[in-house]
């Protein structure tokens, strides 16, 4: 069972075989997607007809619009990045405030609030989406009836998408930052006060630099999670679809290898961000 105990040859082979098969299972779909991004055919299906970069740089000549020439697709990538940026900014900011609240403040009902902060993680994304949609609609109705205001940001669209994604991503950011803040040695802060620093200065020069790895980690996780979110976004999206929604729409109509090209692009981008993050932790 473990290396320090005798293991029969069969056991070793079986374990290694299972683990090997597992990783094949894990990577085959991704490799397939990557490979067919370069296939010289109009559909992402075998047989292999030759290598081509058409699906990346094609200009629409042979009826093949490559990724970089496909304006709606590029626009949806930009929309995704914009939404992810705002979600990340809000999540890290509010997450830091929450972390300080959980680790430093003392007040009645703190245990209840801390449990409630974990609630969005158990609520299915679809439910988060429809609940925010319904509530925003009620608020918009209210504003219209009471003051005759037509509040556009309460209709399905990017502000609501940001709100929906934020509502659960901030929980994750809070957990990440609070875990780091918990291990902070408060005597360092007290030393700063003793040396004459104000609260703000101590925070700025002692605590926040300590939190920096967690802040960057939380930002990276928030960005990635926002970028790939589907369920909540699906319910809240208006006329500007982010990338996941656009891909879904196209996949239902009939996949074209442009989607493979986008996927490969996403894989490389996520790998770069995640590996940079891992390297930082070394």
């Amino acid at each position, binding site marked *: 069972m473990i290396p320090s105990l005798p293991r029969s040859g069969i056991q070793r082979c079986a374990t290694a075989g299972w683990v090997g098969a597992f990783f094949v299972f894990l990577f085959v779909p991704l490799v397939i997607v990557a490979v067919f991004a370069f296939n010289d055919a109009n559909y992402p299906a075998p047989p292999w007809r030759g290598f081509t970069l058409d699906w990346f740089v094609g200009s629409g000549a042979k009826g093949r619009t490559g990724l970089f020439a496909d304006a709606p697709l590029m626009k949806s990538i930009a929309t995704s990045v914009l939404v992810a940026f705002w979600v990340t900014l809000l999540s890290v900011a509010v997450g830091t405030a*929450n972390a300080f609240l959980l680790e430093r403040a003392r007040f009645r009902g703190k245990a209840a609030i801390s449990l409630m902060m974990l609630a969005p993680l158990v609520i299915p994304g679809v439910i988060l989406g429809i609940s925010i949609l319904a509530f925003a609609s009620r608020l918009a109705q209210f504003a219209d009836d009471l003051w005759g205001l037509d509040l556009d940001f309460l209709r399905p669209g990017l502000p609501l998408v940001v709100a929906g994604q*934020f509502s659960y991503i901030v929980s994750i950011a809070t957990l990440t930052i609070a875990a780091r803040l918990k291990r902070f040695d408060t005597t360092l802060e007290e030393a700063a006060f003793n040396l004459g620093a104000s609260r703000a200065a101590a925070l700025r020069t002692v605590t926040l630099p300590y939190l920096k790895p967690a802040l960057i980690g939380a930002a990276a996780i928030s960005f990635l999670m926002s970028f790939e979110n589907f369920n909540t976004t699906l319910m809240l999206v208006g006329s500007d679809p982010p990338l996941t929604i656009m891909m879904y729409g196209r996949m239902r109509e009939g996949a074209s290898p442009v989607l493979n090209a986008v996927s490969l692009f996403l894989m490389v981008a996520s790998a770069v961000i995640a590996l940079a993050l891992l390297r930082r932790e070394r």
Partner: protein
Amino acid sequence: MVSAAADPLASRARLALLLLLAPAAVWLVGLIVLPHVELAVLSLRARVAPRVYEWSLAQYRTFVDEPLYWRTFVRTATMSILATACTLLIAFPVAWYIAKIAHGRAKSLLFVLCLIPFWVSETVRTLGWMILLRESGVLPHLLVALGITAEPVEMLYHDATILVGLVYTSMLFMVVPLVSTLESLDDSLIEAAYDLGGNGWSILRQIVVPHAAPGIAAGSIVVFMLTLGNYLTPTLLGGKNSLWFTEQIYTQFITRFNWEQGAAFGFLLLILSTAIVWAGLKVTGQRFGDVMRRS
């Protein structure tokens, strides 16, 4: 002197507390509590005339009366439990290998390899499975080339396909808690059990599984919740036969604009999800906060 100075300090501290509390309050109340209250209110409404509503349990009654809805519900729940069980069985040996048998660089490499498929979006992973399994896809082509089948067989749009897709998507969330709890199991306990005459199975049953129970609970709860609330994988891999409950919610809410019905379904899904998570926690004796922090 002291009491005069204490007051502004206390009120400043109170102000600081309120400022810290404000974002959390706005988030929790405005984005979680009130929206769910709104959902509950919607689900208890029925439309009697244009713009005229009254309180009623009609939405829930439709759910009970119409066999399609509650059959879909039960089907979603059972397939989610099945997917969770499969994920656990597949992930356990792998987690064991990473935690106990692999060492040093191989271990961190294997762990990172487990994470990589989950950095890309679910749409990409599902696209991969679609290309692999559909009639014109890679696997049927391979089977024909190997002579196992005469013509390409349509492998999508079966229940098994949905199951494979769900297990694939949930794998990370089972492996990570398992690896972390198995790593904390002291090797010498296993060695001692072996010396006392135990064999693989008895050690597994009496030592490993009880020790790994928190990880198993955490992983299972997260995987179950994810599969229950999944929309993309069942819809794309299962096609029109998918009959997944989240799809029903989407249909009612977005396609048919029947918000009352959609809200009722949403609440039912939420209640089911919460009930099974709570039952799972109770059965294994875990506490919610600990489980969430662990994953």
